[in-house]
């Protein structure tokens, strides 16, 4: 079948079933929008968790030039001797301290840049303001207090944090959003599958004379099925494109725009997802739509179009 002829057949099919095609576009759009939202919420969780989240329970941030107001940092930045003392103190707490890592200012700054890549605060934070730290893994995470009390206020230590306590609540919320969105997406995908199947059935009926002729003159099953599949693909890809457009608007104006300004205004420092995260998710959405269209229409064709 020549491309020009195929285009003509597809055009005829789309004209005959405009209403059904529009509904396939819309249902695909809504289902992929929810799916995209679920995936983006997961990316938001990943962004917030940062590099150390899964590895350590306690972070001991060391003094910088900017933290002189903290009593234990009165002497300015942490000194080499203080750093070594802290390391030997950590060794003294074994086996409660299972393992610890030293993160230099340079490494910390690189990770900070990655985590806050979509945030305007990035430009306002000088490299020196990012503290070096010891990241500590405990053999028993519930004994956080033991480590906290041992190091809080020690010379050269700005603060000891159990970051999880704060962010875990947010994660629970985001995970719930993600789960709800994916569940809705699942229901909508079922709608999409049923609608595509019904559309193909109707199209097959309105095109039954053409398909009979095709069959009789010896067209292959592929040739007979191709116009149906191309029509479905077009409708779902348009739906996917629209959903990506909606997600882009949500991320660009809603998160990167509104939410970031809101948080910055309140002095909050949270690494947020941006449109770059959407471009990582979008190929999966479009790919999913293509796969959905091909598999669903193929199955519907086997059922409704005799070859």
């Amino acid at each position, binding site marked *: 079948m020549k491309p020009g*002829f195929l285009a003509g057949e597809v055009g005829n099919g789309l004209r005959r079933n405009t209403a059904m095609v529009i509904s396939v576009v819309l249902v695909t759009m809504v289902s992929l929008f929810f799916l995209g939202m679920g995936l983006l919420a997961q990316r938001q969780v990943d962004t917030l968790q940062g590099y150390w989240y899964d590895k350590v329970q306690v972070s001991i941030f060391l003094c910088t030039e900017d933290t002189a107001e903290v009593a234990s940092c009165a002497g300015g930045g942490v000194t080499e001797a203080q750093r070594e003392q802290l390391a030997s103190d950590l060794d003294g707490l074994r086996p409660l301290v299972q393992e610890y890592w030293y993160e230099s200012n340079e490494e910390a700054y690189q990770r900070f840049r990655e985590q806050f890549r979509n945030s305007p605060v990035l430009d306002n934070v000088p490299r020196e303001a990012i503290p070096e730290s010891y990241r500590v893994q405990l053999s028993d995470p519930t004994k956080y207090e033991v480590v906290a009390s041992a190091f809080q206020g020690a010379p050269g230590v700005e603060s000891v944090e159990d970051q999880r306590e704060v962010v875990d609540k947010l994660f629970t919320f985001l995970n719930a959003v993600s789960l709800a969105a994916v569940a809705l997406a699942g229901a909508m995908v079922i709608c999409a599958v049923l609608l595509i199947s019904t559309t193909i059935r109707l199209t097959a009926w309105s095109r039954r004379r053409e398909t*009979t002729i095709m069959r009789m003159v010896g067209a292959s099953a592929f040739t007979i099925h191709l116009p149906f599949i191309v029509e479905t693909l077009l409708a779902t890809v348009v739906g996917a494109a629209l959903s990506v457009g909606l997600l882009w608007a949500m991320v660009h104006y809603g998160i990167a725009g509104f939410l970031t300004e809101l948080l910055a205004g309140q002095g909050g420092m949270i690494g947020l997802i941006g449109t770059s995260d959407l471009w990582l998710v979008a190929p999966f959405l479009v790919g999913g739509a293509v796969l959905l269209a091909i598999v669903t229409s193929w199955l519907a064709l086997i059922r409704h179009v005799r070859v």
Partner: protein
Amino acid sequence: MIAFENVTMRYAKGDPLALQEVDVEIGRGEFVFVVGASGSGKSTLMRLIILEHEATEGRVLVAGHDLSRLPARRIPALRRQIGIVFQDFRLLSGKTVYQNVAYVLQVLGKRRHTIKQLVPETLELVGLQDKAKRLPHELSGGEQQRVAIARAMVNKPPILLADEPTGNLDPTTSTEIVAILERINRTGTTVVMATHDTSIVNTFRKRVVQLRDGRIVRDQAGGEYEAIEVEGVAAR
């Protein structure tokens, strides 16, 4: 060209036999009328040739293919060897005469210049070269059937099946249609026409294969339709 070897056909369990132990051979370039009352098995015979259905028992051979062993992916190739004409024409109402005929070649992926050459040639064969731009509803029944014949023949198949092609036409037009089929037959195409049009069979005096209740009851060269009543089963 076409051979039925002891073919029995039953559409579904419990149904009566549509064909019973049918043995018939149709050679290359023959013209055969398949006659019989409604329900006698004429259409079933046609359907088995294009492999719309598979015979329950026995073998059907068409253009060198044993249809009982033909894999599904080879069925299109078989059908490209066969042109089919139906009683109800089955033209595409939104397409012109030319487009209806060209459709077959487009579906089969033929080149544009091949289509430009073959379609007018075929329309000339059926005498419709002047009506290429007409839509089906602007044509008489006879003309519509000629378009259907052109469509069946445009890919130059060696076999032409016609299932009651004159069933919807008046006697004069019917004769014209069969005359076209005869002309096509003279170019070497094997023509099998199912009919219960007495005068057509009597006028053209071709080989007659008569079916009754799914059995061949007569196979006669240059036969008449009336022979059914006179000779009955004994004629075979």
